[in-house]
């Protein structure tokens, strides 16, 4: 059995185990919590494709995420399309948006690229606020079906959908790491000029990375209208998504797909737990506090710590 096949079977087995484990818990809260954690796994893995592999820090996570959410709202309203088809459409549209934004901004580097991506969220939010068909500033309602053909409970269906997306994103990220695309992106991250001089098609690879990253983020946002039932621009374009995604990836480590997964699972589980246990102030401090600790003590994240402990040279 090839290593790749073993990896994919491992992912599928993890998914099946998760579904059965949550079914054993037997309440909706488990599906809801699992959904939020997996949503951040998907966002973090997607963010890492551009930031971790190519070294381009994207502050526009909320823009791509909201594009996915509003794609679902529009397609549901106009064509009454099934959510699975909405997710695919959201991937296409967000991917196209990533490609377009990348083409316009990838000549910018460092903080200039980051500012450009941040402004994308502002531009899109303004567009949605003034688009009455999409709900405008009043927001839009999306009525959730009572059940699903395969799953009696729609919350379970949303969880499984997000699980499939998250596992698919992990498989894609793992493939990118080992592929020529991943190696090219690593070369760009280390020294873009040297990579270009060595014949790496830098612009093309960066465009592919922005498109893949944008598509994944859009697909993460697509089920949100069904999860929340009501969405307004403030909630969809919330900077919280951007900050959480960045913090989770940096805490986990950007060197591999494993880092974002670890960071997202740890931090979002911690946040979910804190929401229903400790005070709100404590909850809000978690992300900031943990991030500061990691930046100071383990700049390469948990993955860096593990590698350092194994003697692979990661700074701790």
């Amino acid at each position: 059995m090839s290593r790749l096949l073993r990896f994919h079977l491992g992912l599928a087995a993890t998914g099946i185990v998760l579904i059965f484990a949550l079914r054993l818990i037997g309440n909706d809260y488990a599906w809801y919590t699992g959904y939020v954690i997996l949503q951040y796994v998907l966002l973090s893995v997607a963010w890492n494709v551009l930031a971790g592999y190519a070294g381009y820090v994207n502050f526009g996570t909320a823009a791509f995420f909201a594009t996915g959410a509003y794609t679902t709202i529009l397609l549901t309203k106009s064509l009454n399309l099934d959510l699975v088809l909405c997710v695919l459409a959201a991937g296409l549209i967000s991917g196209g948006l990533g490609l377009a934004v990348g083409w316009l901004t990838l000549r910018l580097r460092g903080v200039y690229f980051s500012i450009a991506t941040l402004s994308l969220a502002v531009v899109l939010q303004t567009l949605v606020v003034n688009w009455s068909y999409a709900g405008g500033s009043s927001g839009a309602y999306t009525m959730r079906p009572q059940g699903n053909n395969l799953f009696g409970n729609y919350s379970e269906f949303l969880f499984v959908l997000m699980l499939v997306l998250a596992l698919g994103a992990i498989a894609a990220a793992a493939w990118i790491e080992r592929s020529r695309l991943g190696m090219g992106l690593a070369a760009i991250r280390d020294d873009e000029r040297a990579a270009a001089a060595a014949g790496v098609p830098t612009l093309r690879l960066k465009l592919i990375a922005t498109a893949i990253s944008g598509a994944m983020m859009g697909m993460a946002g697509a089920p949100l209208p069904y999860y929340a039932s009501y969405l307004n621009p403030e909630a969809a374009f919330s900077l919280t998504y951007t900050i959480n995604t960045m913090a989770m990836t940096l805490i986990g480590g950007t060197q591999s797909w494993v880092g974002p997964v670890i960071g997202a699972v740890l931090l979002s589980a911690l946040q979910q737990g804190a929401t229903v246990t400790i005070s709100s102030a404590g909850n809000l401090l978690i992300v900031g506090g943990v991030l500061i600790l990691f930046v100071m003590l383990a700049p390469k994240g948990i993955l860096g710590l593990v590698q350092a402990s194994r003697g692979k040279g990661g700074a701790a």
Partner: protein
Amino acid sequence: MNREMTRRSFGLLATAAVASFAGKKSLAQPASGEPIRIGFSTPLSGGLAGNGRSALLAQQVWGDDINARGGLLGRPVKLVYYDDQSNGASVPGIYTKLLDVDKVDLVISSYGTALIAPAMPVIVRHGMAFISLLGSGTNEMFKYGRAANISPVGRKMNEDFAKGFFEVAKALDPAPTTVAIAGLDSDFSNRAMESARTQAKLRGIKVVYDRAYPPSTVDFSPIVRAIQSATPDLVFFASYPPDSVGLLKAVRELKLTAKMLGGGMVGPQVTAIKAQLGAQLNNLVCWDVYAPEPTMDFAGTTAFLDRYRAVAEAKGAETLGLYAPPLAYAQMQVLEQAVTRAGSLDQAAIGAELHRDSFPTIIGELRFDETGEWVEERNVYVQYQGIVGNDLQQFKKPGVQVILYPPQYKSGVLRPGFPAA
């Protein structure tokens, strides 16, 4: 069994509600047994935290009150709440936790449309009776039969909201002929502006300026200058707290004058903004939900405000408590009375009671239609009069926020012109 409420039984309930404020513990049977758990999410952090925290204090005051007089159905009451961080995406998870894990017996809503609507699918699926706080049209889509909304705007906000403002303007001499409308591009403000347009059209008043500004607006001078050049008789703003302050400061700096200025401004109701603007508020005609005037002194209102303010002072919260707190307390009173009338925690029975009869509360008698909105809108329009300096104590007294609309609560007469002479 005839379940229609008779005048006598209504009188008994009203008397009970009044008596509850006497706080005579010696007369109450002590609550016993397992507590009845009331679950909700509430914004204790984020943009809506100011109102969320003050509403929570009011709900806790109710919790203390009801436990002191023997509990609900003879059982003590316990509030189970979580911070939704003013984020609608947190709300569905919190309500599933409350219902599936915490197994609460009753639920109420968080504060405002954006935090009420995400809870609705969970509530509907569990068949719970649901009393929400200051939502606008949240049940229009769901048409859920076990819901009630504590919000005075009523079912037809797009039409009725600004009615009071234009009714008050009728007292001006000569009668106004033009109006400028400006407001925030958000759900509540858009509905308020739509209502202003409708009312202006009905009365033959010409709209000479009509613009919505985006939430990111920080400089209001261009808007005020444009209104100034249109020279309207009336100025109707529909704004949220930060922009209400910005608009009023721009009005003052640019010396905009009008026969009447105000409208659906959210902000002047809040203690911090009252303290900040002080005498600048004089002659502003503004939408409100409650004012401490003799005409709105319902059974228990003063007692509640005294108790709330004592707790708020100690906790450093919103000290006047004139906006969200009375409504939040009334929310709990409606829940209490619906459960008491149902005689059990059966959600269908409680839901049915929500629409059967009226509820005497500290904000007056409330009656809900089939969608859970108030049968009669009660948008209050007050005019700030005689404010001196920035002392907050003056806002606790009658005669400072004079009620001009609705007529049944009118407590003074309009002072024309803005700013005050």
